[in-house]
């Protein structure tokens, strides 16, 4: 085995990299997404006697976008070995600001949206500084800032409300055209680019072993601050898309994203110990989690039992991932 590989022609190298390095990280999220999608097609056609229509795909995409962005942010953080509970607070704050400032024309709205991105990134950076400079475990630091950012959201927008300009909506989450797909594509490209920057490599290095990363001269503190700031930015994007799909804001909007984003990251196959995984997996995970809701819907599950199936889905998805890993290990033999 080893012998053939060392003398393998160069053209096989990409496959070697793919198999050893890329595939194992991507497989779980993709497999779960594929399985969920098949289940969706089955229950959908079973119920409605026809395949899903563009309308279904569009609304699936548009409603998933906020979770997808939060999940990307969460996956960056988890890749460094951390966790961010404050995503709920940051999304709420972003939503509150966009909603509270809406109705002042397209230009003003866009201006505020950019401002929101900056504010959310700043919130994330504050997390990063507390964690990296203050040396506080991420789960604890973000538990505290969750409360702070959530409080600010309530202050900014005491009652749900606001609106979004139809022109803005047509660009972000057009209900009739697949603009959402473009944004999703941009998110994927963004990740692929980030992964190929020195910063991106450093994120993995810090997540894999922070002490070693520091020893080889990687500024671990600033890498982490950067990662949390990026996570904040992702929450800001999620907030913008949230307001765009729902056409208004709610100061508690972010709450469901805390556990959902963690679940997406898990289903996406990113290791909680850091250093292993891909945001693309988390995107797949987020889509799968969104699809499960539709599967349950069309399967006609008694609403009282819905969370039972969602809980089972989570555990089973990860168990399957574990099973895949075990099989892969067995096939490779003990090394």
């Amino acid at each position, binding site marked *: 085995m*080893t012998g053939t590989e060392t003398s393998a022609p160069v053209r096989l190298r990409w496959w070697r990299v793919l198999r050893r390095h890329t595939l194992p990280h991507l497989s779980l999220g993709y497999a779960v997404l594929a399985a969920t999608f098949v289940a969706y097609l089955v229950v959908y056609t079973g119920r409605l006697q026809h395949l899903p229509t563009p309308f279904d795909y569009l609304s699936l995409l548009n409603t998933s976008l906020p979770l997808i962005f939060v999940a990307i942010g969460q996956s960056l953080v988890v890749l460094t070995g951390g966790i961010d509970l404050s995503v709920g607070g940051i999304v709420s704050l972003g939503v509150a600001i966009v909603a509270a400032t809406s109705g002042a024309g397209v230009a003003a709205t866009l201006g505020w949206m950019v401002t929101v991105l900056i504010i959310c990134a700043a919130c994330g950076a504050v997390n990063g500084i507390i964690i990296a400079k203050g040396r506080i475990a991420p789960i604890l630091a973000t538990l505290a800032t969750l409360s702070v950012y959530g409080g600010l959201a309530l202050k900014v927008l005491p009652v749900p409300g606001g609106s979004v300009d139809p022109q803005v909506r047509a660009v972000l989450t057009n209900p009739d055209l697949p603009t959402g797909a473009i944004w999703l594509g941009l998110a994927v490209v963004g990740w692929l680019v980030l992964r190929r920057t020195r910063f991106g490599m450093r994120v993995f290095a810090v997540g894999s072993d922070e002490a070693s990363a520091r020893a080889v001269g990687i500024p671990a503190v600033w890498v982490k601050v950067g990662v949390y700031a990026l996570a904040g930015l992702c929450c800001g994007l999620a907030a913008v898309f949230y307001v765009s799909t729902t056409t208004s804001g709610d100061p508690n909007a972010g709450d469901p994203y805390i556990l959902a984003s963690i679940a997406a990251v898990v289903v996406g196959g990113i290791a909680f110990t850091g250093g292993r995984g891909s945001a693309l997996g988390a995107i797949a995970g987020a889509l799968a989690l969104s699809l499960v809701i539709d599967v349950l819907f069309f399967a006609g599950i008694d609403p009282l039992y819905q969370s039972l199936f969602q809980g089972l889905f989570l555990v089973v998805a990860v168990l399957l991932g574990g099973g895949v890993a075990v099989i892969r290990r067995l096939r490779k033999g003990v090394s």
Partner: protein
Amino acid sequence: MATDPDLTSAVRASGVDRSFGGVHALRDASFAARAGEIHALAGENGAGKSTMIKVLCGLVRADRGTVEILGEPVGRVVGPAARQRLGMATAFQELSLMPDLTVAENMLLQNPPRGRLGLVSRRRLVPEADALLRRFGVDHIDSAAVTAGLSVAHRQIVELVRALATEPRILILDEPTAALPDREVAWLAEHMRRLRDQGCCVIFTSHRWREIETFADRVTVFRNGTHVTTRSRITESEAVRLMSGRSLAGGYPDVTAIPVGDSALRVTDLRGGTLRGVSFDLRAGEVLGIGGLAGQGQRDLFLMLFGARRSAAGRIAVAGRPVTIRRPRDAIAAGVGIAYVPEDRKAEGLLMPMSIRDNLSLATLDHRSRLGFIRRGAERGAVRSIVSQLGIGTRRPQTQPVGTLSGGNQQKVLMGRWLLTDADVLLLFDVTRGVDAATKHDFYRLVAELAGRGKAVLLYSSETEEIARLCHRVLVLREGRIAAELAGPVGDAERIVAASLREVPGDRD
């Protein structure tokens, strides 16, 4: 003469203090090394060698004192990156490779190949890393492999190549040879000399005096965090005296008397992992060495005998009775008891923040408990007696965290844990790795004494010399099989090396 006043110093540290919590790692320590020399830094475990190195390379901030690199004071600026820009490269004692990255990523992390748009070209990572490995003659390492899957020796090589490849003006290697097989040690020496000859300042640490003697142009000795002396010639016995403040009692124990005890551990056709059928019989009172090149199945053998890794097939009998060992608990309880002392005390042995007592009694809690409650009096007694028996340097064994002990004392605590189990079969896996000379000799005496008391010892060491000098008999492993059995005291390490190489195996593990 305390400090070298040489003005041509490539690195110079003076009056450096550094403490961690209550532990003074360095006190008023000074160190200087010139360009164009190989400079060894010697001292017992905990003498402050690694801390000094970390201060030099900017990883640890000095509480007090000054550092100059190539004649420029660097103030108290911290950050290895700044030093790297000055041409300094370091390979650390606790390796600094990221386990989840590939070898290629680890090697090129700081300066990855760029493709279009200035982005990192992931396609060119592996070929470029391969080229580097080839340049240093170690292309048997797969640069596309995830680092965590590599053997310690291979990881050490990658760490070294990464440092060497920068063609540094100052190269610092902290215990580079501790995990290296002899052949790779020679490989490293060659590169150190080449760089020295090109005018590089090479600094390294080692606990193997032979290496210091043969490689180093000058030696600096540290003791208790301070500079003791810097000389170009120094004998081993004098060095040991300078390092420890005491002189070495004897060298290796006498192992000529061949024990004739009963079978303590009989292994028949053990397979699994890298093992492809290993059989032997270890007798009471015998020290049996396991030799061979690195990665020939030694580690798997020890782990499987102890139940820490699953075997695929094979039979094990302890004191003549067949036993099934699925997990360490089975091994501890098997017949007369099996004990395993690992080489990596930080990862596999000790609970650093917990007390010496807690660490010592962990494997024998059930012996000293009633209805699940720990019998504190009995525990205290047992701890006290083992502390004095092994001469563990502590005054508060019941409460002092084991992490505050020096490395040698930590290793003794780990040994003590297993002595408390009173197991008759001891699996000692490279227990002297990174242990200073004085403590090493304590261990040699202890091994001989245990064997003398009728214990059966299976011993592996990355220093072939130790196997040759400590064991009554040696089995040489090659590709998961016993390639040779050298009966009687081997005495000369060359015989083991020769047996390991007789049929030169491919470079793989």
